């Protein structure tokens, strides 16, 4: 039950800048997800808050308290490690009770809290076992349980689901979300899996090379990514990008991508009048590229002639790998599509959902 503030925090390991001028505020009871590719500084950001690393520069606050020099045990946080870090020589019960015992919690109280957490997580039958007698999913729950019983102000989780198989992961994801709603505590959660981030986070902070790229709700992040990196990182399959130029006039503005040319909707064109004649990077998500036969009504259509290169049936949808000239892009279309490999189709772009980026700064053009 506390907010967390990173105030211009930088962390260097020798020459490596793991976290660069991080300046974020995590609200009370929020579920913040730190998302980014491997090595972008997610774990380091978390460890800074846990007190396992000292910031090179900047301040970290939990609620109003400056915690730069507060040792981990006095920060009132709990952390679930990627490896779970269960104490191998202790039973599940002792693993969960360890932190409470060290804090001199009365025995009856320890027992009550451990039992309660165990029931909540469905591991009450495992309390007498040693960690090595547990499956991966059970270990993960014990690790979460060990954090819960402490009733901390902030939960930190470093990729707690990455050791689980796909099915279990989906299940555990939902459970953690439920847990967050139930505990009403601040969660900071690290992952490189965008599905986890999108489904669990109330807000997502996207990191790249230690620099915060964008921090917002999953919805906003998806619909209006702040730059090329965020646009490409979020969404699967990834957004299609084309090098293009804005041509024509404000009344009739076209995106010219050499192999095709599509009309920009008039309202958008007005906003873009300063960019006329400039090079841009044109982005469109695969689900905004439609098969002409199953095109939803009421969209502003832009038509692109393309050849079907590969089709992938995913069950409830089909991915078409399309080629215009030699440029390849992906469409995510209705499963009833009749497009076959080698066909020429006229793909329909939903021009209401286009994304434009400055090729130099890579920032979104709004």
């Amino acid at each position, binding site marked *: 039950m506390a907010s967390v503030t990173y105030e211009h925090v930088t962390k260097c390991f020798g020459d490596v800048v793991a976290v660069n001028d991080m300046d974020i505020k995590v609200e009370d009871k929020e579920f913040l997800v730190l998302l980014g590719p491997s090595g972008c500084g997610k774990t380091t950001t978390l460890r800074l808050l*846990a*007190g*396992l690393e000292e910031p090179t520069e900047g301040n970290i606050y939990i609620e109003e308290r400056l915690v730069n020099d507060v*040792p*981990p*045990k006095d*920060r009132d*946080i*709990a*952390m679930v*490690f990627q*490896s779970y*870090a269960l*104490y*191998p*020589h202790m039973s599940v019960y002792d693993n969960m009770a*360890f*932190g409470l015992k*060290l*804090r001199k919690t009365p025995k009856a109280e320890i027992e009550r809290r451990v039992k309660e957490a165990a029931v909540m997580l469905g591991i009450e039958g495992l309390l007498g076992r040693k960690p*090595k007698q547990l499956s991966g999913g059970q270990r993960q729950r014990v690790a979460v349980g*060990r954090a819960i019983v*402490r009733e901390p102000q902030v939960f930190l989780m470093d990729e707690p689901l990455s050791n689980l198989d796909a099915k279990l992961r989906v299940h555990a994801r939902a459970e953690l979300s439920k847990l967050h709603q139930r505990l009403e505590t601040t969660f900071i959660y690290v992952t490189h899996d965008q599905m986890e981030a999108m489904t669990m986070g109330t807000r997502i902070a996207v990191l790249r090379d230690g620099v915060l790229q964008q921090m917002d709700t999953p919805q906003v992040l998806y619909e209006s990514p702040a730059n090329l990196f965020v646009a490409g990182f979020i969404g699967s399959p990834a957004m299609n990008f084309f090098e293009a130029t804005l041509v024509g006039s404000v009344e009739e503005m076209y995106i010219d991508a050499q192999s095709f040319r599509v009309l920009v909707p008039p309202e958008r064109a007005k906003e873009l009048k300063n960019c006329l004649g400039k090079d841009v990077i044109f982005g469109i998500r695969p689900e905004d590229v439609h098969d002409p036969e199953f095109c939803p009504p009421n969209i502003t259509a832009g038509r692109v002639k393309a050849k079907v290169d590969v089709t992938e049936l995913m069950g409830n949808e089909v991915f078409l790998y399309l080629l215009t000239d030699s440029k390849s892009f992906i469409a995510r279309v209705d499963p009833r599509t009749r497009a076959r490999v080698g066909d020429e189709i006229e793909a329909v772009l939903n021009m209401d959902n286009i994304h434009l980026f400055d090729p130099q700064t890579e920032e979104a053009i709004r």
Partner: protein
Amino acid sequence: MKDRLRKVLSSAPLHIAILGIALIWSLPSVGLLMSSFRPRNDVLGSGWWTVFQHPFDFTQFQLDNYIHVLTAEGMGRAFLNSLTISIPSTLIPIAVAAFAAYAFAWMEFPGRQTLFVVVVGLLVVPLQMTLIPLLRVYNRLGLAGTFLGIWLAHTGYGLPFAVYLLRNFFGTLPKDLFESAFIDGASHLTAFFRLALPLSIPALASLAIFQFLWVWNDLLVALIYLGGTEAVAPLTLKMANLVNSLGQNWHLLTAAAFVSMALPLVVFLALQRYFVQGILAGAVKG
């Protein structure tokens, strides 16, 4: 069924070879054991292997040699002295080394690396070099000829290796465990007693075996710092004296030798479970 037979047959040569080597290896000890139970005249008259001519004739064995050696020759006293020397000389260095190794492995302090290199560097100092200067210090402090003196000496000689071994073992324990404990509220002392020690039992046991055997079998250090007086002489010293005084009495010497071998055997057998675990711990992860 046939496969199984083939399996047994194909591994048979290996097993036979191993068995043969083990037999040859243990032959001297078996001979020693047999001789130590035979009466004086038998030992002088025939080889120990002759007992196998009448394997069920137990009258050819007797305990008199042991009784004589332990009482009249003072081996009993020496045995107690050896224990008095060996147990503290094993426990003290391991206890000290464990604390030091934990600090070297998990605590941040300036000069940690340098200090560790110095400690490891001490491994190459031959202990013979230290005998004279240390003895002079002992004489001045009145430690020469006391048990305290030899405990300290063995602690000093044992520490570098013990610190080195334990630091490396502690270093291989997952860092996450300690960080998790610190977040859970543990101090370094708690982490040491509740995590590092229980997780290092195999390493501690191996170390205890090494150190105990080395101290138990030591003659030089005991001779120098304790001197040869009856009241403090350990088994090794006593044995050396017996060889002089009882040169021809094989039946007694073999019994004495077995008295000095018995305890290390017991210690090894008792701790070997951990010993094997310790060797495997590094190899099999998980």
